[in-house]
């Protein structure tokens, strides 16, 4: 087995005492050959990221450490390597890229200096040589105008550009192993496609082994040679990508794959023609204010929503899809009057709610409610779940007893135990909190639910459960829903109609099936083409 780059045998990583489980990773055995891409797939808490950290010798010591087992890198056991030796290896022979390219780069140092550090610590080169190499590297990762980017600070680049710079840094010394820890999770789908392509191109050139950590089966299908599926620190299944994705054996793998939303839109449902909500030429700009005493130039402004016109019919789900910065969340907030739009009409039944003031709006708030993206930030940590849910109806004038008994019913409807009523939000998992968020929205018996990326912070199996819950509720309560998402797979499974947004404008609307089959606008085509795992989908479907 000398041709293997990496051979991890019987690796145990312990967690600090009092954690949910004793071992973060238990009895792990994986290997990696040159030029190979190994994907470690798992949901949050499966131990996949700690495995990567262990490899780099970057476990958060002293609480989390390797208890037993060996990590053999070209014959050298890294668990026994000294810290100076590990420092030598890191960045030159094994390097790593991370999920969030904004926080992974030092905000007060230029890209050039940060790339330069790799050379400074591992290579004997003069200053001008190092600078030249940095520029070449940035060119290699296809960044425009590398000379300028060398002198730029991270915040001056876009998310995709930052990740490219990270990749340039990681590949600076042609490492034997590249560890990529969810490198595209924070990126938009079109950027993700470009970054994945870049990683595999770089891999072909440098013949490095790539250890790719992800939760996204679409990505796995596109890039992996072999796959390791992890659950609670155990490897439940390993094999070639074809075997694991198409003939999974372990029930957990099967369940995971089953919960990946299919790209084939579901059959359209019959719908009424009654319009419950319509927006006409909604506009929203941010910024553009004058500075004190009107001196100097006015601030820059962002045209977040431009002339958006849409309607929502009773009982249907309208999907608003787009990448980050497309204005979809701003639009949602304008629709439910969390933000005041600058002009246009928002008709709820026969009332233009845009023109209403706060007090006039209050009775209408029961009709239209929102479910938020981040289940951790959107629930007040100091208020008990029961109060969170019953607060809305009490403000609207319901009696406390009635609101509370309704809150208990709702907890049952969203699939939570009644005991949740007297607990605080932090006692619940992400999926459970999202259920609480849904119960809160339902407490006012709304006719319209605006869901802003309600599942994007959740693991794929939880995501499937929440989507199912939303579906049930929508059927049983005859809700109309505006569903905001960046994930076209989710959109395919949830939405009856889609509105595709870019730069604040809706570029295309239509029935979900039609848009997926025959997109008209070039941007929609790009978006659809960038969804990872399409070949695999077609294989499964056909």
């Amino acid at each position, binding site marked *: 087995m000398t041709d293997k780059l990496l051979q991890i045998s019987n690796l145990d990583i312990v967690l600090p005492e009092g954690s949910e489980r004793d071992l973060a990773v238990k009895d792990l055995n994986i290997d990696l050959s040159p030029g190979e891409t190994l994907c470690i797939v798992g949901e949050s808490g499966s131990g996949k990221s700690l495995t990567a950290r262990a490899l*780099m010798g970057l476990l958060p010591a002293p609480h989390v450490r390797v208890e037993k087992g060996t990590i053999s890198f070209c014959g050298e056991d890294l668990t026994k390597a000294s810290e100076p030796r590990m420092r*030598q290896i890191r960045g030159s022979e094994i390097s790593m890229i*991370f999920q969030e390219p904004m926080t*992974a780069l030092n905000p*007060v140092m230029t890209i050039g200096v940060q790339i330069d*550090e790799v050379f400074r*610590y591992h290579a004997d080169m003069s200053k001008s040589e190092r600078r030249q190499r940095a520029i070449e590297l940035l060119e290699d990762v296809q960044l425009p105008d590398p000379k300028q980017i060398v002198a730029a600070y991270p*915040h001056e680049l876009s998310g995709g550009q930052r990740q490219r710079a990270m990749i340039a840094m990681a590949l600076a010394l042609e490492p034997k192993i590249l560890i990529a820890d969810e490198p595209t999770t924070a990126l938009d789908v079109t950027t993700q496609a470009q970054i994945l392509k870049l990683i595999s191109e770089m891999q072909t050139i440098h013949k490095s082994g790539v250890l790719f950590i992800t939760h996204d089966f679409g990505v796995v299908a596109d890039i992996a040679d072999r796959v390791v599926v992890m659950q609670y620190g155990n490897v439940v299944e390993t094999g070639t990508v074809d075997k694991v994705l198409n003939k999974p054996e372990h029930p957990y793998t099967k369940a995971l794959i089953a919960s990946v939303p299919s790209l084939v839109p579901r059959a359209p449902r019959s719908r009424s023609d009654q319009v419950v909500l319509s927006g006409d030429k909604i506009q929203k700009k941010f910024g553009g204010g004058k500075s*004190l005493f009107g001196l100097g130039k006015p601030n820059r402004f962002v045209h977040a929503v431009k002339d958006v016109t849409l309607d929502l019919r009773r009982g249907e789900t309208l999907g608003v899809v787009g990448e980050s910065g497309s204005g979809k969340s701003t639009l949602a907030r304008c629709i439910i009057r969390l933000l005041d739009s600058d002009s246009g009409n928002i008709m709820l039944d026969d009332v233009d709610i845009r023109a209403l003031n706060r007090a006039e709006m209050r009775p209408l708030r029961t009709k239209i409610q929102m479910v938020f993206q981040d289940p951790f930030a959107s629930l007040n940590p100091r208020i008990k779940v029961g109060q969170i849910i019953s607060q809305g109806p009490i403000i609207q004038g319901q009696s406390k007893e009635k609101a509370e008994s309704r809150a208990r019913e709702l907890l049952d409807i969203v699939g939570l135990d009644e005991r949740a009523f007297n607990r605080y939000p932090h006692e619940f998992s992400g999926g459970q909190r999202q259920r609480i968020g849904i119960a809160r929205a339902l407490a006012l018996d709304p006719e319209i639910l605006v869901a802003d990326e309600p599942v994007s912070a959740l693991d794929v199996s939880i995501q499937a459960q929440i989507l199912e819950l939303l579906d049930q509720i929508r059927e049983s309560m005859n809700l109309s829903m505006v569903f905001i998402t960046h994930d076209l797979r989710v959109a395919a499974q949830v939405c009856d109609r889609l509105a595709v947004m870019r730069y604040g404008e809706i570029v295309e609307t239509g029935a979900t099936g039609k848009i997926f089959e025959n997109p008209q606008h070039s941007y929609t085509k790009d978006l659809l083409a960038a969804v990872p795992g399409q070949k695999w989908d077609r294989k499964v479907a056909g």
Partner: protein
Amino acid sequence: MNRSSKILRYVSRRLIQGIPIILAIVVLNFFLLNLAEGDAVDVLAGEAGSATPEYMEEMRKKFGLDKPLPVQLAVYLKNVIQLDLGYSFRHDMQVTELIIDRFWPTLILMVSTILLAVGFGILLGLFAAINLNTWKDSVVSVFALITYATPLFWVGLMMIILFSIKNDWFPTSGMENSAMFYEGFERVKDIAHHLVLPTITLSLFYLALYTRMMRASMLEQYGQDYVITARAKGVSERRITFVHVLRNALLPVVTMAGVQVGALIGGSVIVESVFAWPGLGMLAFESLFARDLNLLLGIFLLSSALVVAVNLVVDVVYCFLDPRIEVN
């Protein structure tokens, strides 16, 4: 447009914006001070022991205190715009002259205090963060806690007892030994010698504050993702601490230091009284009791101008420390 000309534009704009702010402060102060009972004439008459109402009336007329408030304000504002801060009848001197005379001692005290507090605060905080959870960290934390909790005047008095009376290391009071008529470098040395105790006293509290802030800020930055990235590149811990983390950790400390310069002027009253330091704090304190409003207003004007200027300096420094802050 390049960065330096951008900053220049920004500075000049901020200076122009500062003028109405300072004028507003002057107006506000004028009315606030006139809310206090009694005027300079009452105090002068009281001190003289015998003054007829007619004589007091005449004095008021002479000082311009008999006119209605708005007129007084208008006259004062007109003078201020011509950079004339009026006359202190109490000290029989031009206010401008008086203030500038007393401004230098305060400036010396303030600058040395800030340098000491911020400089040592950063060093101690850094030291504590590097030696986290060791006895060194504990010693720094306990020191910070004690100095934070001790009243300024008490520290001053104890310092005098310890270093001036028991051991004759430093002078008890004053700014220089005027009897010696030192010149040039000798004089600088003499002032520095007098400066030691007041500076330490005034800076101890702030030193504790910055130490704690710096330590917390360092620890927060150590937890950031970019530290892991740096480690993953094989960068040494030394460089991570002093290049990556330090610069990010400084940002909140600089902000805080800028905000507190204003508070320092207030804090200096106590220290100036304890050490008989001939500064603005002392002058303000005395003139308040003498109802010497002209002088008091002048001091306030100067300190507000100082705060506006220091805030501007901090903002510009911040631009250089943090590239994410844009000047516009």
